[in-house]
């Protein structure tokens, strides 16, 4: 049974001020209702005034997705009552959005490139936020925080072109990547992305799942729905066309029938704003390098593999980081960023933004100059990351190496250890000389143990062999 999914994605644009007033958008750590004014509180008589940067951000997205920008687009009122909506209507766009007809390329489940069609993108204002006191449906009262009211949202609507929950997640990851490349979105901000998903099994009615607020949540919600709908069909129960809510904590969707009847939003053009004429404006917008172009440039400029280039360019912050450390040695840097650093960050749920690139470059230099072994380098990296994660002052890799004595064992210290090990294991030496080559591994292992990984095993093998063959023991 073919799964058919279409998404409506709402992302908060990272403008400095709100969509229709001068209030700051940087409210996340602040007291409720401290980033508000007559406009975003919907006080009587206040009028909206469009934030041109938000429009420009929307146009950047439209251009990057190769969309048709409408010569004249228009804001509209979506009317409904809700306590978090201070004006009793939301200013959004309806029949004349910013742009229509775009595409985003993703990989399908078989790893083939496919195009997902974008129906439209439009601008709208975020409502406030309700905080229920006393827990869920039995809340004794609710508080309203209008700090979020008026934050610019870009709604991106896809055609029903997605064929699995995994594809949906890949689509969102790709979308986020593009938005971050364009500098219009910061996916790390809490609540910056919200998704409504339409899902149906071919030949059956579709269900809308609302209230999904993470990439993983989308995959979870859709997976749950596929299973639920397949089971109903198997039992011969018809799928009801309805709106369901995703309960993130329980990983299930529940019907919201009765709670939220079919709304008549009574859209009409917003009389307080003039239509937007943006055609000339679009021509002047210069797009930054996007993921695909950057991937190709990385392969060409740095001579790295397709796999590495793809990994390194998926996230604009990772790509920027790589370019800051590639000067040490592009290939070495690619391996260490893509294979080691990203894994360590993922393990710590840590952003690459917290890693000082100059220290990482210094670490690469130590590896390149053979001052540390790969194993020791990983240990140094872990110490670095743990310090960053804990918010402690960064320590240079050299300092960590010295402090923990992780430098590659060399010179006299080294020879002495080799000699001591060989003298302590005469039987093994005897075995080696009598042709049991496996005995060498045993001896090398003993030296490694003594040096706590500071020695390069291959080099060590050579030295031990040399020592046995030249010494009189």
């Amino acid at each position, binding site marked *: 049974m073919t799964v058919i999914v279409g998404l409506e994605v709402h992302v908060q644009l990272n403008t400095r001020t709100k969509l229709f007033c001068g209030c700051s958008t940087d409210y996340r750590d602040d007291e409720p209702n401290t980033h508000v004014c007559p406009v975003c*509180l*919907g006080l*009587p008589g206040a009028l909206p005034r469009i934030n041109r940067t938000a429009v420009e951000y929307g146009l950047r997205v439209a251009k990057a997705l190769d969309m048709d920008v409408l010569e004249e687009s228009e804001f509209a009122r979506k009317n409904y009552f809700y*306590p978090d909506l201070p004006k009793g209507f939301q200013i959004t766009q309806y029949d004349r959005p910013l742009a229509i007809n775009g595409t985003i390329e993703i990989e399908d489940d078989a790893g083939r490139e496919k195009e997902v069609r974008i129906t439209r993108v439009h601008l709208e204002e975020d409502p406030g936020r309700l905080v229920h006191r006393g827990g869920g449906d039995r809340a004794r*009262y*609710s508080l309203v925080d209008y700090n979020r009211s008026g934050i610019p949202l870009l709604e991106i609507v896809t055609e029903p072109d997605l064929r699995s929950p995994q594809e949906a997640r890949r689509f969102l990851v790709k979308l986020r990547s593009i938005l971050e490349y364009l500098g219009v979105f910061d996916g790390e901000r809490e609540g910056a992305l919200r998704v409504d998903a339409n899902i149906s099994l071919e030949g059956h009615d579709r269900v809308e799942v609302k209230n999904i607020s993470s990439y993983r949540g989308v995959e979870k919600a859709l997976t749950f729905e596929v299973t639920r709908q397949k089971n109903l069909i198997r039992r011969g129960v018809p799928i009801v066309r309805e709106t369901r809510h995703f309960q993130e904590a329980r990983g299930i969707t529940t019907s919201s029938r009765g709670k939220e009847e079919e709304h008549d939003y009574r859209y009409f053009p917003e*009389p*307080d704003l003039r239509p937007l004429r943006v055609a000339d404006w679009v021509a002047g917008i210069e797009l930054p390098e996007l993921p695909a172009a950057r991937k190709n440039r990385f392969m060409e400029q740095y001579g790295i593999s397709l796999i590495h280039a793809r990994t390194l360019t998926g996230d604009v912050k990772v790509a920027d980081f790589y370019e800051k450390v590639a000067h040490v040695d592009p290939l070495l840097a690619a391996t260490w960023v893509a294979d080691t650093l990203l894994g360590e960050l993922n393990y710590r749920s840590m952003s690459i933004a917290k890693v000082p690139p100059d220290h990482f470059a210094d670490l690469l230099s130590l590896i390149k100059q053979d001052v540390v072994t790969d194993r020791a380098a990983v240990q140094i990296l872990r110490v670095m990351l743990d310090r960053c994660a804990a918010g402690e002052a960064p320590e240079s890799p050299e300092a960590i190496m010295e402090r923990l004595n992780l430098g590659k064992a060399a010179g006299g210290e080294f020879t002495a250890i080799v000699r001591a090990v060989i003298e302590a294991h005469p039987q093994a030496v005897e075995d080696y000389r009598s042709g049991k080559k496996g005995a060498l591994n045993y001896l090398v292992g003993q030296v490694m143990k003594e040096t706590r990984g500071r020695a390069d095993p291959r080099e060590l093998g050579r030295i031990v062999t040399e020592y046995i063959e030249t010494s009189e023991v």
Partner: protein
Amino acid sequence: MAGTLHFEPDDRCNAFITVCEEAPYGDGRLAGVAVAVKDNISTRGIQTTCGSRILQGYVPPFDAHVVTLLRAEGAAIVGKTNMDEFGMGTTTETSGFGPTLNPADRERVPGGSSGGSAAAVAAGLVPMALGTDTGGSIRCPAAFCGIVGLKPTYGRVSRYGLVAYANSLEQIGPMTRSVEDASLLLEVISRYDPRDSTSFDRPYTHQPSTDVRGLKIGLPQEYFGEGVDPRVAEVVKDAIGRLEDLGAETVPCSIPSMAYALAAYYVICTSEASSNLARFDGVRYGPPVDARKNWHEAFREIRGANFGPEVRRRIMLGTFALSAGYYGRYYAKAQVARRNVEKDIERVLASVDIIAGPTMPTVAFRLGEKTDPLSMYLSDILTVPANLAGVPAISVPCGTVDGLPVGLQLIGRRFADEQVIDAAYAYEEAAA
């Protein structure tokens, strides 16, 4: 010299909802002049009710742009004037704070919705006041009370701080004893304000002139025909005769789209109002909601109890007109009719400079005389075209019928407020 004006009016007409007995003023062209402000214009620190119980006790934390400008020129804001609730009415009888009486005859209505401002000026309590005009709300009470009232070109005066009734139609304007005062007041309030996206940077700076030689005046047959009291039409024709004596010439014309103007007007204003008034839910200001009930029930209760019947009627009409399945039949059609009125008026004003006619089809009604909403709506027929087209229009007193004032209405081209003022000034000077 800055100071405080003591203001204790003998308000026998119930012109004021709020009186500021100690009104501070400053320096400027209006230094120490008492100005009354219609109660739908936000005044920082002074209760602003829109004539509605649902906003009782609401004190705005900011000034409307026009109030900022008034204060900057030294005016003393002496009070907030009575009005039809949210501007929805033609008599000031729908106010939640009792009707205003007409100073010319206290048995009669002052007109509306800016009836309090008109009565305050006509009774001599203040020399000037601000009104707002959505479909005639400045010109109608000006005509009924015998004062000057100007609705400026749409976009000439910032609406920032004006509590919206029908955003695409309304403008703030002067209500004064003389055309010269109207001109001065418009000059003060027309300074550009980027906070109103529908406004233009076209400040009015004009000295009224009485020279109307060669001015072409169009007389639409619709303004003198059916539904217009012939006695009112006669007085107005005589007044236009005065302008002809001064060298203006008149030509007959027609605005056929006026047949649909009222219907279009009422669909558009109620649609916008149904949305604008959604914010009055008792959550942030006004009488508080009962927080123990669920929000939907609480909203319904507070809105049902505190909006008057005319407001509830218009919210329901507008909600209906915007509903799925009806939008095309009502709202969208009304917009087409509106554009036709606009084009008609543009066409007429391509061959004449000014359109002239009565402001109102009759003189002021008796209090309680009009009980049927439809017949009340019909009395707006001569004023709504200027709002639909966004053009400037003035009402200037031009005589009486049975001792009650009659207004001469002069309508001009967009941004030709100067020409409208000049024609009114010429008439006023000639009639004096």
